[in-house]
C-alpha cells in the first residue's frame, strides 16, 4: 500500500459547524486545481504500519520549489481509499529541483466538482484521523540543508530567498 500526500493548511480543516462539514475555505484554498489536475506526492508505506514513510521527502520536494521557507502541513490518504472512490492517480514529473524526487509525483486528473468533493472528503477524514504532520520552519530548513549536504539538491536551484537562508545555515553545526 502507498499513500498520496498533499500540502494543506491544517487550521482550515478544523471541523466546520456541523458533523462532517468541510469548510469552503479548505476546499478553495488547499485543493486548487490547475487544468482540473490536483498535484500529490507518493509516499511508500512504512513497513507493516499503516503509515507513510519518508514523509520528509514530500516536504523536501515542496520546500525546495518554494519561494520562502515557512512551516509546511502535509496530509496523506491511501491510494486504496482513492481507488475506492473511483479516482486514479497519474504519474507526472514533479516540479522540484530535487531530481531524485521528481518521479514521486502524481496528478489526480480531470477532476470535476463531484470528484474534487470526494478528494475533499478523504482529506478531511485524514485530518480528523491525524493523518497530517506539521513540519516547522526550523525542520524545513534542516531538511533543505541536509539535502544540499548530501548533494541531492544544488543551492543554485533554489529560489533566491530560500537559497540565502540555506546558505546561511550551511555553515552552522
Amino acid at each position, binding site marked *: 500500500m502507498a499513500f498520496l500526500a498533499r500540502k494543506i493548511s491544517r487550521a482550515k480543516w478544523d471541523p466546520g459547524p456541523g458533523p462532517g462539514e468541510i469548510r469552503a475555505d479548505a476546499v478553495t484554498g488547499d485543493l486548487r486545481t490547475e487544468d482540473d489536475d490536483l498535484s500529490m506526492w507518493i509516499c511508500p508505506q512504512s513497513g507493516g504500519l499503516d503509515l507513510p514513510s519518508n514523509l520528509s521527502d514530500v516536504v523536501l520536494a515542496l520546500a525546495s520549489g518554494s519561494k520562502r*521557507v515557512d512551516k509546511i502541513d502535509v496530509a496523506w490518504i491511501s491510494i486504496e481509499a482513492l481507488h475506492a472512490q473511483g479516482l486514479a492517480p497519474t504519474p507526472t514529473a514533479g516540479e522540484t529541483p530535487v531530481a531524485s524526487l521528481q518521479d514521486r509525483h502524481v496528478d489526480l486528473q480531470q477532476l470535476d466538482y463531484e470528484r474534487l468533493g470526494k478528494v475533499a472528503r478523504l482529506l478531511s477524514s485524514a485530518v480528523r484521523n491525524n493523518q497530517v504532520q506539521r513540519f516547522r520552519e526550523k525542520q524545513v530548513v534542516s531538511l533543505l540543508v541536509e539535502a544540499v549536504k548530501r548533494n541531492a539538491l544544488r543551492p543554485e536551484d533554489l529560489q533566491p530567498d530560500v537559497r540565502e537562508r540555506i546558505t546561511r545555515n550551511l555553515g552552522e553545526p
Partner: protein
Amino acid sequence: MNNPTESQSGTAYTRQRSGFSAPSRRYVGETSDFMIEISESPGIAHISIEDLALVLRQLEANAESESTRSSTATMCVRRKSIFDTIGGLAGPPRLPDGIEVAFASLIRALDAEIVEDGEPHPVEDAIGGFVREFGARYLCEALFAAAFRPTRTASFLRLLGRIQIVPSRDRGRLVERGLASTRVEVRDAAIQAVESWHDPALVDLLMSHRDSEAWLADYAKAVAQDLTE
C-alpha cells in the same frame, strides 16, 4: 488642583501642561489645563478644568462612602476612576490622517490573493509600508475588532510575521490577542508569526499559552523551544 501630580494607570496618564513634552500644536487653547494621553491607542485628548473638577468632586464623594478601604487602595480606585471617566469624556483619540484609507487598501489587496506558506504575497510590501508610516499599533486594534473577519486576521498575522520592522511591543500585543481568539486559524497564525519573526522575546507568551487543540499546543511549545535553542 493647584498642584496636580503626574500619575499613571493602565489606561491613561495626565501631566501638568507645563511638564508635557508633546508638540505644542496639540494644545486646543489656553483654557485647557490638562492634556490626556490614552496609552491604549494613539492620540491625545483634552479635558477642561471644569469637567475635571466635576469628576474629582464626584469621586471624592464616592471615596468618603468607602471608609473600609486602605488609603492606598482608595487612591488606586480613585485614580483608575479618574482615568476611566476622563477617557469617556474625551472620547476616542483622533486617528492619523489617511490610516483608515490605507488599511482599507491593504484589505482589498489581501483579499485578491490567498496567503500561502512558502509563497510571497503581493500585499507584503504594502503592509511593510503601512507599518513604517503608521506603526503597528492601529493594527493591534483593527485586526481584532468584532466585525473584522477572523480569516483576514489570520492572514494579516501570517504576513506581519514576515515583516521584521513590526516593533517588539506591538508583536507582543498582536500575538497575545491572536492567541486569545476563539478561532483555531487565528491562534495558529499568531504562533506562526512568532516562528517567522524568530523573536525570543515572545517565547514566554507561547509557553504560557494553553490551547484546546493538542496539535496547536504542541506547535506553540515546539516553536518556543526552537527559539530558545
